[in-house]
């Protein structure tokens, strides 16, 4: 049923279209940045799924495929299928080459197809530049084509609306589209400088666009088949009725186009980008090998129906390249038209994004950065961080590539039919194919050959297809076109050497590829590859079977006598001889010398491999047998094995270092434990002594008093007094021990409050006066600086002061004992110095005095267990301060320091006890 044809009204305004596009682009930005974020957080495994990979491959389907295929079908019938058949053949039948490409790409961290070629041919920068220039030449018109199709689709939409003045300005649209895409590509393509140049955000956005364009085309197709036409049967009938004479299948042209698109799917920079560079797992290719052809099949399914319906319904003179868009519009299906528009927009933008990213990578890596480095080297400046530079260059290159595309678009004004530019670009990038195939499969391929081939091919492509495509008299004059360069007829661009039977496209493809391949082969045969080329060549060609394929021995020319010593050197004397005798026996011979048969050599090589590795074994035998020269491949295999061994031994070394580190730590911990154990024993022994001593007196005098016969009351009282005093001593000792224990374990309850330092000192002096009260002990102090308001545990601080003062009263040896108390304040800390005029503490004992039970004199004089200063130190640590002995002050000098204001957190941060410190 044919729908009613009605001219569309201005329901769909141009502004709405722009808004839709903006919204769509914002969506893409959101998708891309979400993907980038997920990838950065490493939590998005699904991002790296075969489905996403396959969808990203759809960047092959550009606006040319989306819009142009229908136009192509309208003009030439089924021939449009060739563009899908080539890639399908490659993915289904030849995915071995893709797998090899992907593997090589990943192992060599290849960043672009130019990088791939350059890396294979001895990391030649010249080749990199040639390929880059070729790709930019072919890619720029292609990008222009996308800009054109977007601009065109805009104007189709806006054709009848009032806002034509703005809409008609296609250049204006193309400019903003180019600018927006440049922004997107810069944002997600140059976010950082990865070693592997992967861009999960871009890939994700491309995958979304792939879905959009497929859905759009399917929707238009379904509309055409089931709504406009009467279903599949009706469509087939219409196709038969429509069949034009040009629709005949021309086998030669078909073969050529299939070959061309097959080459393009491998060589197009943007395809290389998504297939190889962005690939995260070569297993994804297995899925893509059927899923991508399926995608292409779906994309092509409705092309012919849409073309046929379009030819029937659309008015005479309508551009078939726009049927996908104009058909729904013409039939008033604005929503479908909008979807179709978005599909075309997706197809165009995804191509532009990936292509400009790929081209920019090449331009920056092979042209700008090398030039810059050369310039810099000439200036002899030191090289700083390259990353920012490369990123800036990359960004600039993206803008540049898109700028070229825009300028190309403006200059050509969208003259040529869409499909033409696409195929011209295909022929251009096809020039990369010979050196690429050589890179993968031919070790003899050389840089000279590759450079020669690509150059020759590119020049022919330029002359026979690219330049003429601008039309006569734009670049090539009509005269050259007609009569050939310099008037030589065999140099006519469209019929080199008088070959006139082919159309220009196939003509150019034929000559450029033929001469390219010839030059490549000749160049490779005639030049001698440099060592690095050989190394790279072997690396690329043998990517899947390193460390080397099985090599058999063909023409042995050595004596067993020569081989025996070699074998003995490796296997040891007896085992080597045993092996030789066993082999001889196998051959039915007596003695140690078997015949040198290929079988024997292989067995020997296998045996030796077990000891020295396959490559070394082969190289050693090769030298001894003398039939083979040690090839570069052999040497490389040896090197790679050696590298493995070195790696292994480095690991072993690291392991053993780690072991010895662990052992050292264990030893230290053990020593520490032993030390702690000794300390604990000494401490227990000390406690035992300190407890038993008063108990001894108590028990002895108790027993004496129990048998008090004939004892004077005075004596009895004296003994009771001793018992009493010793009991008190015992109690005090226990108190001190408990106090120390609580302080040491930080379980002490501090009673923090404000106090005046002067009051505390007064109190301490009064309290300590009772110690040896008969001794005249003069104390000098300056009461003014003592007037400090402090916040601390006043009771504990006083305890420390009293202890120091009492010690001084007990131990200060002087005829006129004196004590000076001085107070200082600095940095929020208070320092109180107690200096006496005695003999001080001998240097060798100064470190000991704060230890437990470190009584320096005899107990009679001390009357304590030697815990006083240990307790003082613990108290001061608890109060966020310290107590130290200051040597060289005339007499003994103790400095007590503590914060003016003790905050509860500082109190909690009491340093761990010394034992615990030592144990760490």
């Amino acid at each position, binding site marked *: 049923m044919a729908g009613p044809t009605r001219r569309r009204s201005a329901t769909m305004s141009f502004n709405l279209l722009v808004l839709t596009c903006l919204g769509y682009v914002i969506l893409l930005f959101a998708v891309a940045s979400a993907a980038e974020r997920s990838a950065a957080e490493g939590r998005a495994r699904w991002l790296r799924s075969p489905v996403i990979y396959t969808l990203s491959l759809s960047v092959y389907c550009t606006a040319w495929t989306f819009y142009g295929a229908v136009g192509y079908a309208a003009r030439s019938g089924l021939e449009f299928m060739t563009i899908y058949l080539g890639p399908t053949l490659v993915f289904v039948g030849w995915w071995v080459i893709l797998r090899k490409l992907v593997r090589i790409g990943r192992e060599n961290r290849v960043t672009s197809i130019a990088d791939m070629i350059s890396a294979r041919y001895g990391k030649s920068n010249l080749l990199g530049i040639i390929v880059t220039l070729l790709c930019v030449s072919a890619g720029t018109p292609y990008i222009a084509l996308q800009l054109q199709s977007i601009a065109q689709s805009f104007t189709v939409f806006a054709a009848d609306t009032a806002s034509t003045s703005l809409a008609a300005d296609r250049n204006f649209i193309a400019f903003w589209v180019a600018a927006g895409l440049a922004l997107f590509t810069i944002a997600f393509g140059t976010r950082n400088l990865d070693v592997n140049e992967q861009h999960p955000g871009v890939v994700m956005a491309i995958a979304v666009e792939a879905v959009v364009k497929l859905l759009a085309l399917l929707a238009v197709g379904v509309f055409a088949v089931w709504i406009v036409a009467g279903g599949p049967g009706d469509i087939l009938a219409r196709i038969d009725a429509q069949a034009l004479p040009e629709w005949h299948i021309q086998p030669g042209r078909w073969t050529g186009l299939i070959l061309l698109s097959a080459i393009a799917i491998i060589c197009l920079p943007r395809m290389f980008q998504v297939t190889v560079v962005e690939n995260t797992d070569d297993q994804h290719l297995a899925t893509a090998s059927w899923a991508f052809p399926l995608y292409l099949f779906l994309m092509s399914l409705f092309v012919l129906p849409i073309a046929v319906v379009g030819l029937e319904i659309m008015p005479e003179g309508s551009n078939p390249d726009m049927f996908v868009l104009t058909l729904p519009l013409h039939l008033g299906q604005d929503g479908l038209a909008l979807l179709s528009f978005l599909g075309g927009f997706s197809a165009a933008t995804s191509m532009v994004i990936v292509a400009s990213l790929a081209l920019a990578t090449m331009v920056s890596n092979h042209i700008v950065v090398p030039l810059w480095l050369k310039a810099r080297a000439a200036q002899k400046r030191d090289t700083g961080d390259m990353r920012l530079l490369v990123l800036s260059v990359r960004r600039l290159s993206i803008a540049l590539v898109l700028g070229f595309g825009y300028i190309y678009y403006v200059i050509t004004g969208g003259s040529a039919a869409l499909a033409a530019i696409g195929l011209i670009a295909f022929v251009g990038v096809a020039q990369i194919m010979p050196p690429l195939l050589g890179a993968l499969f031919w070790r003899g391929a050389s840089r000279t050959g590759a450079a020669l081939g690509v150059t020759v091919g590119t020049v022919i492509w330029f002359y026979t297809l690219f330049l003429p495509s601008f039309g006569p008299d734009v670049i090539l004059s009509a005269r050259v076109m007609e009569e050939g360069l310099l008037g030589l007829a065999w140099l006519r661009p469209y019929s080199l050497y008088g070959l006139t039977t082919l159309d220009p496209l196939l003509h150019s493809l034929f000559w450029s590829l033929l001469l390219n391949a010839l030059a490549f082969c000749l160049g490779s045969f005639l030049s001698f590859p440099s060592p690095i080329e050989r190394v790279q060549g072997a690396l690329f060609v043998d990517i899947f079977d390193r460390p080397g394929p099985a090599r058999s021995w063909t023409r042995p020319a050595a004596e067993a006598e020569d081989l025996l010593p070699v074998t003995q050197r490796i296997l040891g004397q007896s085992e080597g001889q045993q092996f030789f005798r066993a082999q001889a026996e196998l051959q039915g011979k007596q003695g140690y010398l078997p015949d040198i048969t290929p079988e024997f050599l292989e067995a020997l090589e296998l045996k030796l491999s077990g000891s020295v590795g396959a490559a070394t074994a082969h190289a050693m035998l090769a030298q001894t047998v003398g039939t083979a020269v040690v090839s570069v491949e052999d040497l490389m295999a040896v090197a790679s094995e050696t590298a493995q061994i070195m790696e292994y031994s480095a690991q072993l070394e690291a392991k053993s270092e780690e072991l010895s580190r662990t052992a050292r730590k264990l030893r230290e911990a053990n020593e520490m434990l032993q030390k702690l154990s000794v300390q604990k024993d000494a401490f227990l*022994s000390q406690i035992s*002594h300190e407890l038993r001593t008063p108990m001894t007196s108590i028990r002895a005098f108790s027993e004496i008093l129990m048998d008090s016969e004939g004892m004077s009351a005075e004596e009895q009282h004296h003994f009771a007094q001793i018992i009493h005093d010793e009991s008190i001593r015992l109690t005090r000792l226990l108190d001190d021990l408990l106090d120390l224990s609580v302080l040491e374990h930080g379980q002490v309850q501090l009673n923090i409050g404000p106090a005046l330092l002067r009051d505390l000192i007064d109190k301490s002096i009064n309290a300590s006066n009772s110690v040896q009260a008969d001794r005249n002990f003069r104390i000098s102090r300056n009461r003014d600086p003592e007037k400090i308001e402090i916040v601390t545990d006043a009771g504990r601080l006083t305890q420390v002061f009293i202890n120091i003062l009492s010690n001084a009263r007990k131990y200060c040896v002087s005829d006129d004992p004196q004590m000076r108390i001085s107070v200082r304040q600095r940095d929020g800390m208070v320092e109180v110095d107690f200096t006496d005029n005695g003999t001080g503490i001998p240097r060798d004992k100064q470190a000991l005095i704060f230890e437990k039970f470190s009584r320096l004199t005899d*107990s009679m004089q001390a009357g304590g267990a030697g815990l006083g200063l240990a307790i003082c130190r613990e108290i001061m640590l608890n109060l966020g301060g310290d107590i130290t002995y200051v040597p060289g002050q005339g007499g003994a000098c103790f400095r007590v320091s503590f914060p003016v204001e003790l905050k509860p957190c500082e109190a909690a941060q009491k340093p761990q006890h010394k034992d615990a410190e030592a144990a760490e």
Partner: protein
Amino acid sequence: MAKRVLVIEDEPNISEALRFILSRNGWQVDVSADGQRAMKEMQSAPPDLLILDVMLPGLSGFDVLRSVRAGEGTRDLPVLMLTAKGQGADRAEAERLGATRFMTKPFANAEVIAAVEDMVGP
């Protein structure tokens, strides 16, 4: 004539207790808190018995014992060692250096008397 015992002990209350119980049992008791000085006195006039504390300031009881066993006139002197540490290690050391008896503090007075009389004879 009363037998003479020398007590080397730095705790005044303990030496006083020893002095009391020994003299009540008929001994002539000399007390010293300083090993060094006591050694000199012993060289000139060796006692019949030595009661020796291990933990002494300056020379330890073991040092004194070593000199006693090395000294001409004191080689065979009966020595009762007293220790408040009460550890096996001290006892072994005392035996190795030739102490006649070893007792840990606190002691029963009767035990001290019995040991002393056993060592010297009533």
